[in-house]
């Protein structure tokens, strides 16, 4: 009996140790990998994953395009290297990426080696605070010249994307101020705040001091302001108190958020919004959508990129030009191929080739300038809306509202219901 008990205890201890051994190396691998160059990581990846299966999950399907590029790089070192990645890059629907990752990490069968994930709020509260996903910052990225480390390091950002205000210019109305988009009679086309949660993050971020100040400045410069709006803004001080927001100008942001939620016309995706705005019949329609979508319009008698004006590109435009959200690269704490994941992340964030699936198109910006391509002349004189003015312009002149996971997570608990209440009543 004693033997049986000691055997059982031994077995349990061994099982427990094997779990901790499995969990430990990923953190340890990351610690070591952060001190290695890209070439050293390639070597480690070859040793680890030759002939094995690589699975990952991402909000952007383009991760699938990076995998063969990485394999090509590794084969330059070892021509016999093989990686089985066919169909291994999954793109779950309906915000299920968080559930899928959680179950993969907490379950007994771990297959996900890395993730490309968006929605800083959920990344922070569901993945980072719980320790399910680990951050890896490549040495070459840290040491590269001109890298925008601030706000892009933890979690590591592979790209920042912008959603910008646009309007169909075939009508007579004009939009010269961020408040024009929420004046009476407007119904801007926008993906729902809950169908793509980064859109809700934008509304959270609006209450940050920096953007509240812009909202106030824009309101004061707005020719449409009147007593009704003044009263609403004043009244929003009570809401700010309820929501625990203490910024000096936060009432301006809340008023803008409230009007936006009341008015936006929910659509299933940014692509159909773009197609709509490009149509000659969509007179006086506006939208807030991913900038790069306009590259997909084919010129016909009915549709043209020239039917669209990018609001912030107008010289006399006042206020925010849209918002920026980010794609983060992270490693599950149970990653079966952590070295390969580190090599892939380093490849994507420190080389032009690795970032090319995103970098080749306008509207997606790596914090590492080495990776970015110039799109400032994509449209030439014929289609000026396609001439991307670049990350720096958008952040400073275009005044994009930039997602900050920590801030979103800190206000989402209270603000989410407030927003849902307004949306439900529309």
């Amino acid at each position, binding site marked *: 009996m004693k033997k049986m008990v000691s055997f059982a205890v031994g077995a349990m201890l061994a099982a427990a140790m094997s779990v901790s051994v499995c969990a430990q190396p990923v953190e340890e691998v990351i610690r070591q990998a952060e001190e290695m160059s890209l070439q050293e990581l390639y070597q480690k990846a070859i040793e680890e994953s030759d002939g094995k299966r690589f699975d990952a*999950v991402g909000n952007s399907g383009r991760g699938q395009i990076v995998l063969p590029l990485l394999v090509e790089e590794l084969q330059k070192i070892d021509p016999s290297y093989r990686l089985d990645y066919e169909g291994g890059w999954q793109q779950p629907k309906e*915000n299920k990426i968080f559930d899928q990752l959680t179950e993969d990490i907490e379950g007994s069968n771990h297959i996900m080696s890395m993730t490309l994930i968006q929605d800083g709020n959920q990344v922070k509260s569901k993945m980072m*605070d719980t320790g399910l996903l680990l951050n890896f910052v490549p040495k070459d990225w840290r040491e590269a010249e001109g890298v925008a480390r601030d706000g892009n390091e933890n979690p590591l950002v592979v790209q920042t994307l912008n959603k910008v205000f646009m309007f169909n210019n075939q009508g007579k109305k004009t939009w010269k101020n961020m408040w024009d988009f929420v004046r009476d009679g407007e119904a801007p086309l926008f993906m729902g705040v809950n169908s793509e949660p980064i859109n809700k993050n934008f509304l959270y971020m609006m209450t940050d001091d920096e953007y509240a100040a812009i909202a106030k400045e824009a309101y004061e410069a707005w020719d449409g302001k009147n007593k009704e709006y003044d009263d609403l803004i004043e009244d929003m001080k009570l809401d700010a108190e309820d929501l625990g927001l203490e910024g000096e100008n936060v009432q301006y942001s809340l008023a803008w958020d409230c009007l936006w939620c009341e008015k936006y016309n929910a659509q299933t995706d940014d692509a159909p919004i773009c197609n709509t705005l490009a149509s000659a019949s969509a007179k006086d329609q506006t939208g807030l959508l991913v900038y790069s979508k306009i590259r997909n319009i084919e010129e016909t*008698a009915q549709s043209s990129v020239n039917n669209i004006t990018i609001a912030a590109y107008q010289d006399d435009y006042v206020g925010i030009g849209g918002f920026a959200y980010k794609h983060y690269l992270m490693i599950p704490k149970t990653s079966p191929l952590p070295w390969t994941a580190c090599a892939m992340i380093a490849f994507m964030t420190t080389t032009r080739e690795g970032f090319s699936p995103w970098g080749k198109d306008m509207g997606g910006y790596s914090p590492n300038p080495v990776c970015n391509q110039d799109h400032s002349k994509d449209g030439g004189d014929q289609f000026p809306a396609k001439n991307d003015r670049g990350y720096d312009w958008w952040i400073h002149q275009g005044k994009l509202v930039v997602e900050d996971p920590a801030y979103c997570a800190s206000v989402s608990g209270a603000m989410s219901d407030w927003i849902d209440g307004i949306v439900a009543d529309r």
Partner: protein
Amino acid sequence: MSKPKAGRSGFLKPVQNRIRTFFSKPQNVILLVLGIVLTISTIYPMLTIVRDTIRLHPGSIDASANAAASQKELLGTTVTGYNWTNLFTDTITTRVGRRRVTQSVASVYLWTPLLNSVLVSVFACLGAILYGGIFAYLVTRTDLKWKRYLSSVFIFPYIMPQWTLAMLWKSLFNSNAASGGSDGLFASVLGLYLPKWWCEGLFPVSVVLALHYAPFAYILIGGIFRNMDASLEEAAMILNTPGWKTFLRVTLPLVKPAILSTVLLVFSSAMGSYPVPHYLKLNTLSTQYVEMNASRAGQASILAVIMMLFGFLILIINQRTTSGRANYTTVTGKSGQRSLVKLGAAKYVLTALFTVLTMMTGILPVVMFATETFLPNPGDYSFLTHGLSGNTTLKWWVTREPAAESGMYGQKGILFNPQILNAFKGTFFLAVACALLAGTIGLLIGYCVSKNRRSKWAAYVNQIAFLPYLMPSLAVGAAFFVFGSSAGIYNTFLLLILAGTVKYIPFASRSALNSMMQLSGEIEEAAIIQDIPWWKRMLCIVIPIQKTSIISGYLLPFMTCLRELTLFMLLCGQGKIITTMLSYYDEMGLYAFSSGINLILVVLILIINTLVNLLTGASIDSGISGSGENRKKKNSNCSG
């Protein structure tokens, strides 16, 4: 010492004999095994979703309320009543019409979607019964023209993925003036601007779902009309009863079971529909479930539980109204007489009317799908106003190098797209697996229940097998999602096959049960006397005789699986099967891809249905109704 032994042996022997006798009958063994398996596969996923309502979800509202514990600790925490108490008792302060108001949480997240779901389900039932029922009457009991053609085209909306009609509705009726955005076909070509309530919300959702499910009503009600004893109506006529009175007092009561069956089937299906309300902008329990998942995961599961309760309610109603034996597709009369009502001049008017209606719901979508695949931009009908040249394209079909064409979003043309091909393969594999499993299990249930008609266990197995059908698809999907995630089989074919099989067993079991009920026991008894083993009796006697109904029992899960989205959308990534891929393209506004896939799907289903029909006589219609002409022909053969 020997007495008690003898006593025990005396007590055990009859029990042993009874057990031996019980297990000597294959139907008993099968029922026992299937009862246990189905109870686990049906009830366990449901229990997991109930459990999910009392779990803590890091990053969700229930976790915020437990802020004292760190997020890491929350992962291990199991029980909380917060989701229930918060949803039903708490309030939030928000803005309604820009006024500050304090509302209950339920009024923001529950009551409106619940009301909308119930209204949509009721209107979809009414619409399906009226449209399908009238059509069934005209086809089976009158001298309407072109019956064969109309009958074939009428079931097209059921064959197509349900949201394709919703997409069609949008591209026809949307307008800058009413729904915002660009003009649809009616506005741009005809200059006809319809009001907003027509373009989005309760009305179009109800109409689209009614059109999608009208073939149900047609097949179920038509099955009874087709076999109804005309002498009953003739007797009324001889007694000088007015036509309307005959209809109300004689005809209608006879089709009442079929109407009730339609209500039962359509109500839960409409309630569980996600894509139609999603695309036509109505907030229902299904859409709310998906929207709440990010920040209120536990409460989203409560919505799924509420949808399931509707399923249970419908099951109880079904049981009450069918008196234990769930004969919802029963053909009540078998008359040799059938006289057709002469419509006179109305015959031509009604033929024209239904030709137009079926064209709109059956042919037009197919034409629109085909057209969409040649448009340069989604919904860009420039070719209608400016000619074909430069305003049409083949790029959606034949592009091999997506970077060279605008608007392809990195996708190759449909004919060369490996993702679409893989998704088709996945769907085909899933449909075949579900059809084989559901069809076989359904056949066994049908057979065994018909052999043990008075057994309570058989009745239980029959009900538990039917239960998933009465559950809204999204609720079943949500239950299997929670179950699959915790079992580590999310995004695997195993989970999809499991969910599909459980959901589609009712198709096969009902079809099989109805056909087995008509088999005379004498046929098998003769074989039993000759000591022919059970499996041989099944393969050589039972299955060949009822092969048409049995094949229909396989065909229906197969067809339904091919175009199912709501059930599977929570269970896998978007590239796994063709409907999730299709939905992805629709979401992305890549209507050319989704239309092309739809076109291929519809043609594929029609070809398979026609082939199976030609080879075996089985078809979708006979599968749903479990009745029809084939049945009538067979009855004379099977009664011994």
